[in-house]
């Protein structure tokens, strides 16, 4: 978190009819921080963003910015910049007028508007597109203009609602880096909603993993990957094998022998060993499936009727379906998870 709490959400609850969207959510966001709300669709991440924006009013809870309560303040008066998923540029206005719109609404002096438009257009590398209409631009350019439009009135917070999800994969990656660089340069407090873990891991200072209207875990990409608190986080970020502790042929210090909890193991942490060198810690299984995925190969191994996923670097032509394979799970790869699988 940044040096000071800038945005504070306290016990936010929101229902749509009988459907609960947010259930008692609390979160502090620091000044200049880039926070991502990550989760599957319907987890409440967009609703939470819209509550911050003032586009939804929570049924209960408080939103405050720098100590001022924001509940009851219309979105119009919050001076937060928002970039929506897509098609939010006013189709009847040129790029220039789209960007100038917020400045005119916020009563900027006339002679300050035009320089500011050029400034933000240069920021998003579209200095030469001012006269164009949205339909004349590509999807990536439209989202850049939307970003410029949101930034133009110098908002105190930038809110991004899945801004890249409608774009092609290549453009998406370009823009990810661009937005992150821009945010770092401007040091603007930013909240982004996404369902793409890679996007969140690449861009965010802190990731807020959400599920079914509650926050499951908050932390940096490394924390979430290395120390997921529960099965949901473990399986949502990266892949995770879930097995009984006994199946790993390992024991955890301090654990009672009759207790056999579920533990998680990342597929890339499982080590391949020579079948001939097998010892007591070795698991021997048969290769059920072997999939080449470019920089790594994913293997589905069956050990005593249970499946185990392995990810090995590079292309493995030596491993064929049906072959026997011996593996070992290092003690350090074991993740204790709070909840047992349902």
């Amino acid at each position: 978190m940044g040096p000071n709490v800038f945005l504070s959400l306290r016990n936010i609850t929101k229902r749509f009819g009988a459907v609960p969207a947010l259930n008692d959510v609390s979160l502090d966001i620091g000044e200049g921080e880039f926070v991502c709300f990550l989760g599957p669709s319907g987890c409440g991440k967009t609703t939470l963003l819209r509550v911050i924006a003032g586009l939804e009013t929570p049924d209960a809870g408080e939103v405050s910015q720098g100590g001022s309560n924001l509940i009851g303040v219309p979105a119009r008066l919050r001076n937060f910049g928002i970039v929506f998923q897509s098609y939010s540029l006013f189709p009847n206005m040129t790029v220039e007028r789209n960007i100038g719109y917020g400045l005119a609404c916020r009563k900027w002096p006339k002679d300050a508007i035009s320089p500011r438009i050029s400034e933000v257009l240069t920021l998003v590398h579209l200095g030469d597109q001012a006269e164009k209409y949205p339909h004349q631009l590509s999807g990536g350019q439209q989202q850049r203009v939307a970003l410029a439009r949101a930034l133009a009135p110098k908002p105190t917070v930038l809110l991004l609602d899945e801004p890249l999800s409608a774009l092609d994969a290549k453009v998406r990656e370009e823009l990810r880096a661009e937005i992150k660089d821009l945010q770092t340069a401007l040091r603007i407090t930013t909240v982004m909603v996404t369902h793409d873990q890679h996007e969140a891991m690449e861009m965010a200072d802190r990731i807020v993993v959400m599920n079914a209207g509650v926050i499951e875990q908050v932390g940096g990409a490394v924390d979430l990957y290395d120390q997921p608190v529960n099965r949901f986080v473990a399986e949502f970020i990266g892949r995770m094998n879930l097995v009984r502790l006994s199946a790993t042929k390992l024991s955890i210090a301090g654990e009672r022998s009759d207790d056999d909890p579920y533990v998680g193991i990342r597929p890339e942490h499982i080590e391949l060993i020579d079948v001939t060198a097998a010892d007591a810690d070795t698991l021997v299984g048969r290769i059920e499936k072997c999939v080449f995925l470019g920089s790594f190969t994913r293997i589905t191994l069956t050990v005593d009727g249970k499946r185990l996923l392995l990810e090995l670097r590079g292309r493995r032509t030596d491993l064929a379906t049906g072959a026997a394979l011996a593996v070992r799970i290092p003690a350090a790869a074991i993740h204790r998870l709070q909840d047992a699988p349902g």
Partner: protein
Amino acid sequence: MSSTAAATRLVPKFDTDRIAVLALVVVVVVPLLVFVVAPLVGIFKMSFVTADGIGFGNYVRYVNSPKFAKVVGNSLAVATTTTAITVLLAYAFAYAMRRTAMPGKRVFGSMALLPLFAPSLVQALGIVFLFGRNGVINRTFNLGIDIYGFWGIVISDVFYSFPHAYLILSAALAVADARLYESAQVLGATGARIFRDITLPSTKYGILSATFVVFTIVITDFGNPMVIGGDYSVLATEIYNQVSGQGNFQMGAVIGVMLLVPAALAVIAEKWIMRRHHATITERSQPLMVVRERWRDRTGLAFTAVICGLIAAIVLVVVVASFVTLWPYNMHVSLRHYRFEVQNGLKPLWTSIWVSLMAAGIGVVVSVGAACVTRRLRNLAGQCLYFLSILPAAVPGMVLGLGYILVFNDPSNPLEALYGTLLILALCNVYHYHAQGYLIAMTSINQISRVFDEASTSLGGGFIKTLWEVTLPIIASSIISVGVFFFVRSMVTLSAVIFLVTPVTQVAAVSVLLLDDAGNANQAAAFSVCIMVVVALALLLFRLVLRMSGRRNVLLIH
């Protein structure tokens, strides 16, 4: 931050935005109450006024009169017969247009809409010129056909209501999921079976909607029964006879309520059905490609050509009749009927144009305003406004017009000054057709993503600013078409304004009726032609304006 109860609240004391919304609500709702609800209340009240005080006396007297069963029976007979014929013909017509590969679709499609742009009694006028006592058929072949009465009204109303049914059914048949038809073919279904099992079920909502719309149009139609009904009395003409003929307002009000009931039921049924109608077409649907099929296409072509020929013939007869010395005795070309030496000369035409321009202006503001406010309110208040806005669809023109006399010809009403002015004619037309104008605006506003509203809000744009700079410019073409709609309707409508015109404020459509009533059919025809020319010019002008402003493909017909 419960510890910071004293934290500065940024909530403004007076949110200017709320005031703006509230102001627009008032601007939209108050006139709806004054010009729709009050006249309806007036008519209900009047229907209970009897010589011995307030009571059901009028109803009892009317229901017990022998005339009651006959008039109600006549109205229902005409309405059901016409509805059955129209929907059948329009379905076949729309099917030929949408599901065959026949040539000439553009021309036929435009011709089918011709009756929308003619005064509502032109059909009857044309049929009288052809089959009437002094019609060209009877005179030439000496047949002695008596067209006045049931069949005259039915035939006229079939043509009068045809475009409405066609538009609905054409829209229903325009959408189809090719995948369904392909699977049926692969499974070995024959053409007839595919029609019965796929086409018909997928257009059933369109058929039901068209049925109720046509029923409403026919049962409330006044112009055609007036011209061709003879002694065959229907509810709409009966109101007129009671009020204008006998000065019996109470009885007029009773019949008005009687007419209101079936019309309202039909409208409610139609809205209810359309609400049940969930989209059967999804974004994954494949559009149906019509392939050539010789006999089917030729049958379709022959059928549409015959229907269009009849529609055109009726209008053409009226045009020809206006240019001959004395139809059908002296067929020499003459311009004498265009001298308009009676009844204020050509002044009613100018009055009509002026009233229609006012109606277009006011209609655009109130119906688009109502649509904008409805979208903004979203909640129960929005639903109430929606109901109030489409309420006029259920009110027959005759009933609304009579309600206007009852309310605005009352010295105790501060708005009495409106009575006898052109403004009240314009307002009457606006609120008579408010539902349709509102629904055009509503449809196009609902096509605008809410993201634009939210983007504008987050950038600091208020309600009015968003409306003015974002919403309205996006739907500009629809706004223009709402204006055109009100203009055209006001030019051709007869029923609502018939009670409100004075000798000074007479409008063209009423002139046609009065001229025909006075036995001057040729001049009535000439006046009708003038109305049609004005409408055609207006449509042409708007087309031109739209084309010059770079907007194409705008629907001017609804």
